[in-house]
C-alpha cells in the first residue's frame, strides 16, 4: 500500500505569514485577533477578526497578476510558495501529469463579489468588471496554484464550509494513496472578512463580540466562551508518496495515515455527536490505529457552546477512558476561524506537534465547564511526545472531515 507524507508546509494567516512565525506566536499563546482594519467596522456589533496583519498585496505580486487575484487566491498562492520552497521539490516535466492541486474554500472570492454587488445595486453601475468571475470562482486558488507551479495532474476544489480544507487534504491524500497522483499541493484559503459577510455571520449569532479586548475574545472550551471569531488566510501542504519523498531525500514532517468523512444528515447548523464520532473512527480505522495510540487532537473547537460540548461528547464516545489522557487543543483561540482555510492551518499545527513534540495551547481558557471536562492544554504550550494525532473539522451543514497524522 502506498503511504503518503507531508514534505512541505506553508502558512499565510493571521497568526503568522510563514510556518515559523505561526509556530512562534502560537507556542507563546499569542492571539492574532484584532479590531477589523479592512473596512470601518464601527457600525457592527462584531468589530473584531483574525486578519492577516499589515498585508500589502503589491509586496508579493506584480500589479498585472493582482488584477486577476481575489484576496483568497493571493493567500493560497503565498502559502503554496512556502510549502513548495520548504519541501525543496523540483517537479520534472514528465512528473507534472501526476502532480495536482486540491484546495478548499468556504467563501471563494466573496470580497470581490461583495464589491461588484455594491457597484451594481448601490452605485447603479451599468457594467461590471469582466474579471469578476475568474476572481470569485471557488476554484480560482486551485487554478492559480496549478498555473504557478505547473501542476497538470488531478486538480479540483472543495467547498464544505469549515471542513473545506479537511476534505481537500483528505482527497489529495487518497489521490496519492490510490495511485492517481504522486505529488499534491493541498489545503485551504479564505478571505471572508468583508462588511457583508460579517453582517451575515452576526445575524446567525455565533460570533464572539469581545470588541473591548479582542485578543481574549475567542475562548474555546472555557465556560465563559462567547462564540467564534472570523479569520482569514491559507494553509498549504505538499503531500508526497513516501518512496518518492525518500528517493529525493526530502524532510518528512509527518505521515497522513487516515481520513474520515461523514455527514450528520441532521440539522443545517446544529452539530451532532454521531457524525463527528464516526468521522474520527473512520480515520482511526483507515490508519489501523487504536484509539489509545492517539496522543493529541487538534479540535475543531470553535468556541461556540454547541460545538465545544458536542465535540467533547464525540471524543468521549470514540476514545472512552483514554479521552482523559489525551491532549486536546483549539488553536482557533489564536488564529480565529479561517473558514475554508482553517483545517489546513490546523493540520500544520498538528504536524508541528508531531515533529517538534510541542502541543500548541488553547488560549484564553478561563473557567472550567462541567460539560467540557477534558484536558484542553489551557493557556500554555506543552512539551509532549506526539506519535499519532488527529485534526477535526466539523462544518455547518453537518459535513465532517477528520485527518490522522503519524510520526514517521
Amino acid at each position: 500500500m502506498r503511504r503518503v507524507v507531508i514534505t512541505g508546509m506553508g502558512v499565510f494567516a493571521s497568526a503568522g505569514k510563514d510556518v515559523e512565525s505561526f509556530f512562534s506566536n502560537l507556542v507563546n499563546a499569542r492571539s492574532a485577533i484584532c479590531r477589523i482594519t479592512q473596512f470601518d467596522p464601527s457600525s457592527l456589533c462584531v468589530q473584531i477578526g483574525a486578519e492577516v496583519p499589515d498585508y500589502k498585496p503589491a509586496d508579493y505580486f506584480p500589479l498585472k497578476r493582482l488584477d486577476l487575484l481575489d484576496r483568497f487566491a493571493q493567500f493560497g498562492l503565498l502559502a503554496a510558495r512556502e510549502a513548495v520552497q520548504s519541501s525543496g521539490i523540483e517537479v520534472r516535466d514528465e512528473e507534472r501529469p501526476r502532480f495536482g492541486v486540491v484546495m478548499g474554500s468556504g467563501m471563494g472570492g466573496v470580497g470581490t463579489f461583495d464589491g461588484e454587488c455594491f457597484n451594481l445595486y448601490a452605485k447603479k453601475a451599468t457594467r461590471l468588471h469582466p474579471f469578476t468571475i475568474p476572481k470569485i470562482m471557488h476554484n480560482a486558488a486551485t487554478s492559480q496554484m496549478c498555473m504557478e507551479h505547473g501542476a497538470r495532474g488531478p486538480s479540483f476544489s472543495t467547498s464544505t464550509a469549515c471542513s473545506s480544507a479537511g476534505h481537500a487534504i483528505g482527497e489529495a491524500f487518497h489521490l496519492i494513496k490510490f495511485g492517481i497522483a504522486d505529488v499534491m499541493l493541498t489545503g485551504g484559503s479564505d478571505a471572508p472578512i468583508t462588511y457583508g459577510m460579517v453582517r451575515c455571520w452576526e445575524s446567525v449569532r455565533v460570533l464572539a463580540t469581545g470588541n473591548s479586548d479582542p485578543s481574549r475574545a475567542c475562548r474555546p472550551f472555557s465556560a465563559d466562551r462567547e462564540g467564534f471569531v472570523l479569520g482569514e488566510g491559507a494553509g498549504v501542504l505538499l503531500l508526497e508518496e513516501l518512496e518518492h519523498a525518500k528517493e529525493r531525500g526530502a524532510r518528512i514532517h509527518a505521515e497522513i495515515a487516515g481520513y474520515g468523512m461523514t455527514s450528520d444528515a441532521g440539522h443545517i447548523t446544529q452539530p451532532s455527536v454521531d457524525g463527528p464520532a464516526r468521522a474520527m473512527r473512520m480515520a482511526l480505522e483507515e490508519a489501523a490505529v487504536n484509539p489509545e495510540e492517539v496522543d493529541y487532537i487538534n479540535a475543531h473547537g470553535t468556541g461556540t457552546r454547541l460545538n465545544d460540548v458536542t465535540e467533547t461528547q464525540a471524543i468521549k464516545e470514540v476514545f472512552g477512558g483514554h479521552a482523559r489522557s489525551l491532549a486536546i487543543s483549539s488553536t482557533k483561540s489564536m488564529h480565529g476561524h479561517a473558514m475554508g482555510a482553517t483545517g489546513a492551518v490546523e493540520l500544520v499545527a498538528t504536524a508541528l506537534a508531531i515533529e517538534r513534540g510541542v502541543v500548541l495551547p488553547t488560549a484564553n481558557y478561563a473557567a472550567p465547564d462541567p460539560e467540557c471536562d477534558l484536558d484542553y492544554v489551557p493557556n500554555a504550550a506543552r512539551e509532549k511526545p506526539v506519535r499519532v494525532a488527529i485534526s477535526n473539522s466539523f462544518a455547518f451543514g453537518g459535513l465532517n472531515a477528520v485527518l490522522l497524522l503519524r510520526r514517521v
Partner: protein
Amino acid sequence: MENNVAEKVIDIIAREQHFQPGVVKLDSTFAELGIDSLDAVNILFALESEFKIDIPDAVAQNMRSVRQAVDSLTRVLEGKDVSDLVAMAKGGTQAAGG
C-alpha cells in the same frame, strides 16, 4: 476627434496592462503587446466605462490592434454603421471558453 480618441485609447491600454509610458503605440497589435483575449475584454470594459458607450460584442471581437480599437471606437462614437465590422467578426475569438 480621432487623435484625441487614439491618445485616450493608448493611455487606457497602458493603464490596464500596467505598462510604462511609451510601450503602447498606434501601430502595436494586441499580440505584440502580449494582450490575450481576457486582457482584451478588460480593455473593452475600461474603454466602455471611459467613453460611456456600449461596444457591441461583434465590434469588440474585431479589435486586435490599437489602430483597430481606435477606428472601431471612433465609428461607434460617431454613430456610424458598424455592420461591416459585425460581419467581419464572425469566427472571431472570445475571451473565455466557459
